[in-house]
Every structure is written in C-alpha cells, then in structure tokens.
C-alpha cells in the first residue's frame, strides 16, 4: 500500500483538457437530454 502522503502512481497522472472535456460530456449529454425532455413537458403548462 502506498504511503498516505505520496500520491499513487496511477493517481499522479496529470489531467489533460481532453480528459476534462470527455468526463464533463459524459455527464452533460444525458443531463441535456433530461433537460430537453423536461422543457418539452413544461411547455404543456402554457399551451
């Protein structure tokens, strides 16, 4: 087991902008789908 004070090798990898974009898209795409469906339903209140 690695010592607490020293980051493990796997965790020490620097995060890239690509990784940042990919992981945010991973959660943003389903969320956008949910929001879109919600907006479609919400419109019914004003019809």
């Amino acid at each position, binding site marked *: 087991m690695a010592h607490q004070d020293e980051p493990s090798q796997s965790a020490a990898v620097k995060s890239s902008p690509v990784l940042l974009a990919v992981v945010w898209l991973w959660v943003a795409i389903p969320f956008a789908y949910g*929001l879109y469906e919600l907006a479609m339903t*919400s419109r019914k209140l004003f019809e």
Partner: protein
Amino acid sequence: MGFLDRSRIIAGPGWNRWLIPPAALAIHFSIGQAYAWSVFKTPLEKALDISGTASALPFQIAILVLGLSAAFGGTLVERKGPRWAMFVSLVAFSSGFLIASLGVATSQYWLVIFGYGVVGGIGLGIGYISPVSTLMKWFPDRPGMATGTAIMGFGGGALIASPWSSQMLSSFGSDTSGIARTFLVHGLAYAAFMTLGVLLIRVPADGWRPAGWVPREETGKQLVTTANVSAKNAVKTPQFWLLWIVLCMNVTAGIGILQKAAPMIQDFFQDTDAPVSATAAAGFVALLSLANMTGRFVWSSVSDMIGRKNIYRLYLGAGALLYLTILLGKNSSTALFVVAAMVILSFYGGGFATVPAYLKDLFGTYQVGAIHGRLLTAWSVAGVAGPIIVDAVADAGKKSGNSGPGLYAVSFYLMIALLVVGFIANELVRPVNPKFHEPEPVASAEQAAPAEQGEAQDKKDEARDEQGEARDEQDEEGGADGVPAEKAVPAEKGKG
C-alpha cells in the same frame, strides 16, 4: 481491496479538481433514478396483477433503506474512502436492477422488492453520501457549491431516467418480458455510467489547497469551526438535532407540494375561468422538478457567500411567507401560484444541498459524510409525514364538501407552522461545545472508537489535511452568532 483503497486515489500535483464534480455526478445522476420509479408502476401493476400500493413498495423500501444505509454506513464510507463507496453503490444499485429483472421475468414480485428496494436501496444510501466529504476537501473555498452540484445530480437523475425508462418500455413492451429487459438494460447501463465515478474519483494530497487560494485569517466570528467532531459525538450535540429538525421541517414543507402537485393545481383553479387541464398540470410538475434541481445548485452556491444560517433563514422564513401568499392569493392568479410553488420547491432542493456544508461548518470535515448520513433520517421521516399531512387534510376537506383552494388551506397552514418550527430551530443553532471536539488531529485518530482504531494512520493524515481547509470559512457567516474566538481550535494547532 487495493484498487479501491484510499491510498490509491490520492491525487498527484497536476490533478484538476474540476474532474471531481463529474465523478460525483456520475453517481448521483444514476441513483437519482429512484425518483422516476413511478414510470414502472402502471406497467408492473398490469403485468403482475398487483395493486398500486404493492407497486409503490420497491420505491418506498428503497428510500427507507437509503436512509438506513446512509445513517449506519456513513462511518464505513468515511473510513474506506470515496472510491470504495462508489464501487459499493455501483454494485448494489446495478444488482438491484438485475435482481428485479429476474423477479419480473419469473413473476416473483418479492424479488423486485428485495432487489430494487433492499439491494438497490443500499446503493442509493452509500452512493448519496459517497462524494460529499471528498467534494468539500477539493473545494474548501466553495463547499456549498461543490456539494450542491452533486446533490443537484440526484434531482437531475429523475429527469434523465423518466423519459429514458418510458421510451425503453415503449420499445421493449410493458409485459413481463419487456419490463424484465428494461430492468436488465438499466442495471447494465447504470453500471457502465457509474464506472466513470469509480475510476475518476480522487482525494486531495496532504496539505493540498486550491491554487491562489489563501485561507482567511480566523476572526472568531462564527459558526464555522476549525475543530472536528466525530459522528459518534455529533449525535450527542443539540446542534445535530436542531439541524435534524430544520431539515425535516424544510423537506416536509416541500414534499407537501411536490407529491400532490398535479391534482393540487387542478383543484385550486377548477372553479375559475381558466381551469388547469391534466396535461398542463403535468407541465407544472415538470417545472417544479426543474425548480427543485436548480435550487440545489443555486442556493447552496449562494450559501457560500451569505452563510449557512442565513440561507436557511431564507428557506424557512421566505418559504412560510410564500405558502401564506398562495393561501391569500387563493385562485386569483395561476402565475402567482406557479411562481410561488416553484420558489418553495427551489428552497426544498436547496435545503438538501446546503446541509452538508452546514454540517461541515459546525462539525468540521473529519466525519462529515457519516454525520450527513445520520442526518438523512430526517428525510425518511419527512418523506412519510409530508404526504400524510397533505393527503389526510385534503381527503377530510373533500368529505366535508370543500373544493378549490379550501381543500388545501389547513395543510398549508400546517406547512407554515412546520416552517416556523424549523426557523426557530435554525435560530437556536450555536457553535458546538468544545467538549465534543476531537482534542488534537493526531490524538483524535489515536483515541478513535475501537471499531475505528484500525484506520488511525489514515485519520491522522486526513485530519491534518482537513484542518488546513476548515479555516477559510471562518468569517463567511456574517457575524450572526457572535462566537467567541477561543471556541474555535486554530488550524495551526492541528498541524503539528
């Protein structure tokens, strides 16, 4: 297990903290599916010939188990770390769907209840609290926003799951075979989606701080402590139970509207020139969901600026006034009703999302996840109390011949009373008595309860880290409580 061990997920120097919210969201967007269970109710009732009460059981048990597993599993989550907790959540939540799938395929409904309710419920509870303390460690400058993001995800999960599940049922069919396949796909898809959280989650290295961020000097103003309180001790403090009341009252008041939203708006305006149709009522429910979710992020972020106590004053005080506005406005304006209900629901969501940061302010980050888990029992109580109050009063009103806004008048007055109780409880919150504080970070780990002694080394390291982070909020509360400076333990004291 090595891969899941806390020591394997300590972030290196280049790790971007903005990778942590997606990890948390991957978990919360998934487990938030629980609030979309209603999509399965009618198909299950028809396919398995069960009652409406029976079809609600998996959800009700899941929420009950959520509260229990968060309450009793919180300390374990703190000890094992967020990757372990997320992995357990993934396995339990996905397995729950797979077991439920088997139950439907074999027409053994008890397997659906056991799978989705019990096994899946464990996934909900452990998953719900899994990223909370980690997010606050990564965002010591914005703990409200950080936890608000994750808890917003729980609200957002239903938005995603509801249309997705409906479309899948349409494709596979609503018979036993179709439902079983839908559950199977849900289990596999959520396992894949949650894997991102398990792989991505990291804890900050010892002494890490955000770039350019300097903890503010202690002013000794407030509620925000630099000391730490264990979960075991936290439940002995009046502050914990006052916050329990605050959360319970706030949630009860929100659920009162949320669970009856569609019939309520129709009842309110049925005798007017502009009655609300069932279709329009569905739109109203959707808007409330949006307000609930948005409130989680917006209000918890605002709490970082104005302080936790002040934001709960807003939730509870303004919430009571908004209920009163609806009561006085009766059915004069649909817009007024809709806007007031949306703001109330945003406070409901905000109350959930801000409470972890409030707990951090009072008890420190030492075992905040475990304390949060115990506090969630207030949610379980409110989840039962809120609907019972509104349903019982509305039913009694119908029997006595009431209609329109009159059906809900008593319920709303009760909600106002509950919010006032919560407001008073919030006013009574004071800093935690130092006798409950862990004496020293190092000592605190060594003097931990017997069950916790095995991880004493982990806690030493954690406590050193956390002490450094707790200081920044010292003067964010706006001087509301006038806490003597000596009540807080200086951060440096724990650095040695």
